[in-house]
């Protein structure tokens, strides 16, 4: 069982799998819990490697607000450990799915608390990565601030293992808030936008100001404050009683779903909520981040084009990889990086 193996032994297993894939003419894909699997347009025979036993906590010093963990550790497990010290990773993905830490990094996942806590990618301080070109490399650092060399972790966040397999992640941790309180309003978009603006005028930043468009096209605004009781008392006085907590809506399966994630300039969020069509959408007002599901491929394609035309960023997080390809800026740069990090092109 891998639990007793050293990191070097585990790394050797992955490197052997690289060699096997190369020899057999296969693509290599590392996999965690599998919630963010994207169906390639041109599927190649693939060697899938299960990373779930890379689940160790390598180091955690609560006073530093930094933890280094194996890529296969589920975020829920990590948060259980951190909660013993009243700390957490404030990543709450709108579909409520758990992710491995490495999977969340590789897929570029973000959540509805992005407005209040910053983006998940900004928490990633360092990575241990296995690359076909260079072997095992540490990129970034294990402290909250470092500008030593190029910011290489950015090459591995959201690139789905195209340059290397993430085996360890060093993350910035947050203290848990003393109190949290939630307000939910339902109604037409313009009314909800008024609530969002009022909330922002009273206090900032909110943990989230999330517009939720449910499967029946009903609209709600979820405002969550994380902080001190004094502020909650003030907000209750101004906004009404609210509630201590409220679960996010359960997401039902609707067959072959296209899950999109990304962000839009704030000005465009209202239009996004109006034009989403069938499906489910959460759009965070402060950050412009969104997470949406649709079961119609042509609708997903149209949405992707619409978002890009408004200088937003969007990607298929899971499901069929539809939509026009994003034109990567500096394609020659990317090609040369790919040649260096993955000379035989075995990674996806």
């Amino acid at each position, binding site marked *: 069982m891998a639990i007793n193996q050293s990191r070097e032994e585990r790394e050797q297993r992955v490197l052997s799998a690289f060699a096997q894939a190369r020899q057999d003419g296969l693509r290599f894909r590392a996999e965690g819990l599998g919630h963010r699997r994207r169906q390639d347009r041109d599927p190649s025979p693939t060697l899938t490697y299960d990373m779930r036993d890379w689940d160790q906590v390598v180091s955690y010093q609560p006073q530093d607000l930094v933890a280094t963990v194996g890529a296969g550790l589920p975020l829920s497990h990590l948060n259980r450990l951190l909660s013993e010290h009243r700390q957490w990773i404030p990543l709450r993905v709108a579909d409520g799915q758990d992710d491995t830490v490495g999977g969340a990094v590789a897929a570029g996942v973000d959540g509805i608390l992005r407005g209040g806590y910053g983006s998940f990618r900004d928490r990633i301080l360092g990575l241990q990565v296995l690359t076909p*070109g260079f072997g095992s490399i540490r990129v970034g650092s294990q*402290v909250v601030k470092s500008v030593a060399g190029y910011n290489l972790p950015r090459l591995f966040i959201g690139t789905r293992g195209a340059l290397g397999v993430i085996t360890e992640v060093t993350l910035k941790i947050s203290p848990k808030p003393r109190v949290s309180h939630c307000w939910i309003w339902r109604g037409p978009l313009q009314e909800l936008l008024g609530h969002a603006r009022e909330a922002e005028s009273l206090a900032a930043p909110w943990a989230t100001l999330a517009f939720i468009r449910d499967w029946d096209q009903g609209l709600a605004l979820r405002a969550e404050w994380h902080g001190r009781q004094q502020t909650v008392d003030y907000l209750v006085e101004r906004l009404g009683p609210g509630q201590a907590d409220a679960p996010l809506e359960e997401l039902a399966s609707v067959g072959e779903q296209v899950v999109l994630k990304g962000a839009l300039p704030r000005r465009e969020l209202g239009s996004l909520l109006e034009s989403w069509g069938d499906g489910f959408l959460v759009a965070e007002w402060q950050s*412009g981040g969104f997470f949406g599901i649709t079961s119609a491929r042509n609708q997903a394609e149209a949405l992707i084009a619409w978002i890009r035309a408004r200088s937003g960023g969007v990607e298929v997080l899971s499901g069929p990889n539809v939509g026009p390809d994003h034109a990567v800026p500096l394609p020659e740069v990317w090609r040369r990086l790919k*040649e260096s990090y993955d000379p035989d092109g075995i990674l996806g």
Partner: protein
Amino acid sequence: MEDSLIEALKMAVGARYLVLDPMALLTYCCDGYTLAEESPRAVVLPATVEEVQAVVKILSAANIPFLARGAGTSLSGGATPLNGSVIIHLSRMNKICEIDVENRVVVVEPGVVNVHITRALEPYGYYYAPDPSSQQACTIGGNFAENSGGPHCLKYGVTVNHILMAEVVTGAGEVVRIGNLAGEPEGPDLLGLVIGSEGTLLVATKLWLRMTPKPQDSQTVLALFDEVGEASQAVSDIVAAGVIPAALEMMDQLAIYAVERGAYPVGYPPGLAAVLLIEVDGEAHEVPAVAEDVHTVLSAHQVREVKMAATPEEKARWWANRKTAFGAMGLISRQYYVQDGVIPRSRLPEALSRIAEIGQRYDIQIANVFHAGDGNLHPLLLYDERDSDLVERVIAAGSEILEACVQLGGSITGEHGVGIEKREDMRRQFNDTELSAQYAVKDAFDPPGLLNQGKLLPSAPTCFEAKPAPVQSS
């Protein structure tokens, strides 16, 4: 430089904006890091992206190295020209192009001074968060190149967290936009990669920055300690108590001695070993409670006094005293050499003790002024350049301090960059394979290697090959 090249550059930017006079070029021989100096081949001052593009194409075709420069406040030699480089000085590209309040985006040219952005945003209730101590002079283009931080990056993050999109000119003279207005990368985050690349990958010509809402309120707490160890422990305990201050700064005895002789004396009592300056900010009802928590944590230590700023003027004076600490060193020493290592916050007591031991061993006076909250140390090694033996000892001691930072699990630089100064120190933090992976980035962006030569990476990697062979399993 060849006459034809001179004529081409004059055509590109106008004769007035090409500097060739050796006396005028002396101004550009170094930046804030003065231990290395070299004259540039020429300086060009373009005013538009088209002019930058034309200059880059001319230099690239002639295989002449070049670098962009802003205000030259870098403390690691990032803006010092090497190997006969031409400097592209971006000071004429200094416009704030657009303030888009609805999208919370401000669009600026690279030559805009950092603090001018915040001043421009003030009427709208916003500011630009990264605030390097040099913010009165440093430009946003330089901040982009260095991924600059500042006292308030503890809570608000560094430059890379505040740039959404960039217009850049590549080494081949291509103009490209990286990123989008939403700050959401699709696929590889090339923008995040090039921020902090010290001008070695491309030249930024326009930047889209995040506007941060001004906090409703803030409070500054000052704590006076008789022991450095107690102050260091208090830093960790504040964070462990669940408080993320906007800033958490520390000065030791020698630094206090200097700042009290500077332009903004606070009137610290004699004999203090350390001062902590803590700023908390946020929603108006929350700030007094958080400040009270900080006061409680500090008071649980052996502390001589804990004070809350009673007036905005008092608060401003405390911060002016701290922010001018580097300059105040000039009042007690002819020169100083500042280091920039980072250590895990919990190792602060050990790090300070090792710095003191290194200072004693090399017989050097070291003042410490630093961002304690994120473990970013700024030991200031005092010296006199006329004493060559002392200069050598200072350089050796500085390098040993960086080694100590790495041994404690930290980094050789938190915000000043590698530049010329710490190129060889990169080997302390990264092994040969890891450095090769970094060289691959340089090679991917700038195959001829013309952009800001001799910076950021060690001079001669021991095992790098441009096209590495696949790693074999054993």
